[in-house]
């Protein structure tokens, strides 16, 4: 080892330290961690969608942190918190929606809780039995954003992505129609009832229906809607009628619609158009009766079987209906009479009498003419079984002349006693005649006749019978003798046969003689010549 020179003031070499790579590399680790953490945080924040609140009546089946919000069965959010509203009347569900679903949170978006539901119409939400309920969503079409929603208590019948149109029906009562019931068109299921509620004034009901495309085009401005609920039984002068739509409608009820025939096809109805809901098909399909004229008809007979709504008929054509039935006192005859007010739909009368259109211009004169020709109202039995009556208008040329008093309101049409009444009268007359017949006298006479007949028979028995018996015995004897005489081996027969044989021989001899005489007529004189040898 060489001695280090002390004299030179030499600078000491600096030991180059190794570059601190290790240190810098170590610091890369927290940087990477910070980057990773930062990225995760950014991702979490950027993926976080809006928070919405939905109010429900109950939180049954909902669980914070678990219950999902699904649209078309795709998870679009999750319930984060469930709390009571301030007045504890509702449940406020706070949910976080995925960011991609933000545009769907609009004014008319609807939410409801999907739970297993079993109804007469079917079973739904069965999957939620195991997985727990979830919140279903139906995205609206509005463009106005919304964050606070009110949840539906029942799932909507149709979702907004189903093509079709909604209509409003106003009816007298709800019948057996319920939400979710079927709407029929020519017995095809074409839609559903989406809402049914009482009007605010309590004077009727409003039913909302949804008709699926393409059937919604059949709903025109002239379409009539009626209750197809259950079984429609009617028993009237027309007979016994049962009318149903389908088995499902019997159980569940429903609404049917159709455009009455004979009306020109009109334009399809607008969405949310308002229609009248009729109680049955017949009522719905009735032609629009614009001009209605009421008349009074007064009868002397019982009106049992006639009721408001009973038909007024002219030789089978429905002209109108009975509006009111009452009693009136007739001071002239001091009688109580039955007064019936009928409505005559003049349009029907006139449309069916187009041929007489000129006369129809003055309806009063026209009706007067008809009355002069014998038009009368009459009560007739429509159904013998049930005794339903109807008012018939017909011509009775033999009727007593009458006229309409147009000063009364309503004018009174002349009547004829009903068929039944006439029948009753003739039956009574017949009975009276029958009463006049002296049945007792006739009985006594008949008795006498029978007695003499008995005597006669007795005499015949006592006197005629033995004589007849003797005669018969004689006759039998005679017949026996005759039989014996005519027997084959009877002497008479044998003798006769022998005699005939003799006669035939004699005839032979006579022929031989005549032959000989023919050849030898001289023998008659000379006698038979001896034959020469």
């Amino acid at each position: 080892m060489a001695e280090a020179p002390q004299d030179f003031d030499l600078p000491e070499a600096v030991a180059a330290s190794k570059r601190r790579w290790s240190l810098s590399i170590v610091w890369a680790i927290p940087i990477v961690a910070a980057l990773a953490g930062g990225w995760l945080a950014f991702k979490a924040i950027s993926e976080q969608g809006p928070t919405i609140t939905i109010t429900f009546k109950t939180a049954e089946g909902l669980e914070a942190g678990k219950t999902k919000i699904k649209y078309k069965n795709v998870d679009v959010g999750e319930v984060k918190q469930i709390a009571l509203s301030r007045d504890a009347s509702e449940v406020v569900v706070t949910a976080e929606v995925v960011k991609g679903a933000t545009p769907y949170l609009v004014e008319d978006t609807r939410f409801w809780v999907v739970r297993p539901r079993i109804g007469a119409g079917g079973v739904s939400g069965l999957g939620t039995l195991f997985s727990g309920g979830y919140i279903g969503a139906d995205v609206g079409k509005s463009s106005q954003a919304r964050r606070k929603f009110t949840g539906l208590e029942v799932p909507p019948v149709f979702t907004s992505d189903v093509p079709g149109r909604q209509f409003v029906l106003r009816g007298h009562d709800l019948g057996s129609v319920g939400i979710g019931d079927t709407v029929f068109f020519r017995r095809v299921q074409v839609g559903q009832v989406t809402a049914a509620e009482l009007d605010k004034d309590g004077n009727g009901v409003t039913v909302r229906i949804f008709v699926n495309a393409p059937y919604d085009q059949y709903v025109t401005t002239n379409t009539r809607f009626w209750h197809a609920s259950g079984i429609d039984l009617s028993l009237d002068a027309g007979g016994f009628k049962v009318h149903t739509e389908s088995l499902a409608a019997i159980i569940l009820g429903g609404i049917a619609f159709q455009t009455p025939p004979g009306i020109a096809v009109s334009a399809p109805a607008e969405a949310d158009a308002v229609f009248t809901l009729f109680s049955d098909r017949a009522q719905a399909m009735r032609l629009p009766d614009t001009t209605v004229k009421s008349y009074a008809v007064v009868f002397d007979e019982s009106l049992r079987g006639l009721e408001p709504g009973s038909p007024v008929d002219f030789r089978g054509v429905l002209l109108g209906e009975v509006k009111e039935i009452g009693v009136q006192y007739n001071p002239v005859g001091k009688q109580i009479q039955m007064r019936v007010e009928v409505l005559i739909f003049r349009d029907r009368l006139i449309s069916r009498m187009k041929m007489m259109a000129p006369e129809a211009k003055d309806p009063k004169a026209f009706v007067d003419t008809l009355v002069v020709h014998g038009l009368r109202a009459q009560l007739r039995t429509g159904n013998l079984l049930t005794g339903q009556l109807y008012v018939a208008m017909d011509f009775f040329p033999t009727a007593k002349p009458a006229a309409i008093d147009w000063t009364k309101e309503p004018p009174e049409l002349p009547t004829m006693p009903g068929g039944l009444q006439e029948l009753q009268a003739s039956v009574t007359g017949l009975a009276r005649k029958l009463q006049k017949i002296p049945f007792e006298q006739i009985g006594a006479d008949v008795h006498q006749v029978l007695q003499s007949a008995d005597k006669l028979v007795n005499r015949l028995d006592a006197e005629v019978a033995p004589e007849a018996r003797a005669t018969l015995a004689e006759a039998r004897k005679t017949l026996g003798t005759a039989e014996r005489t005519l027997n084959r081996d009877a002497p008479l027969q044998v003798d006769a046969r022998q005699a005939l044989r003799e006669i035939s021989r004699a005839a032979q001899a006579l022929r031989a003689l005549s032959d000989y005489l023919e050849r030898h007529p001289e023998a008659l004189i000379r006698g038979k010549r001896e034959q020469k040898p």
Partner: protein
Amino acid sequence: MTTTTAAEAGMLGCHACGLLSRPSAAGHTLECARCGASLHVRKPYSISRTWAFLMAAAILYIPANVLPVMETGSLFGAQKDTILSGVVYLWTSGSWPLAAIIFVASIMVPGGKLLALTVLLVSVQRRSSWNPLERTKLYRMVELVGRWSMVDIYVVAILTALVQFKALATIKAGPGAIAFGAVVVLTMFAAESFDPRLIWDPLEERQRHG
């Protein structure tokens, strides 16, 4: 107590085999003459390295607890569980001992480790002479307990491997599991890179000067 430490005497103790050797003048990287391990008076850049690991662990500790560790998918819907929600579930369903074990092993231990290492580092940097013995004990505990935090990761790994019935039921490891595993590993690195001898250095200096 007066002791002469290896550092004071200019000696180097081997980390691996414990052989005491004299520093050589030549060269800057020294090796143990017996086992070949690199020799330092103290672990190089111990404090800054530990800080680096500790900070990385602290950052990842947040996603580890916030993100789901396990994603369970079954016939009846999917579910994502974080460590804490798992503990809550176990607790509410009545498995209190199990909930306690998971809570201690997966939440308290990593959090405690982060805290303990921070305390140690700050005290060393401030050359504090406060309670060196207790601090050394704390360090030993941190080193010992570190690996037990992996219980959660084991459970998730085993379930993920076992429960794979397609549509019926599947279990997947969530992003939280990776973060959690990283936290455990990083805290172990941090504990490893910390040199406990630093705890005693200020004490000796004070003795020498005082």
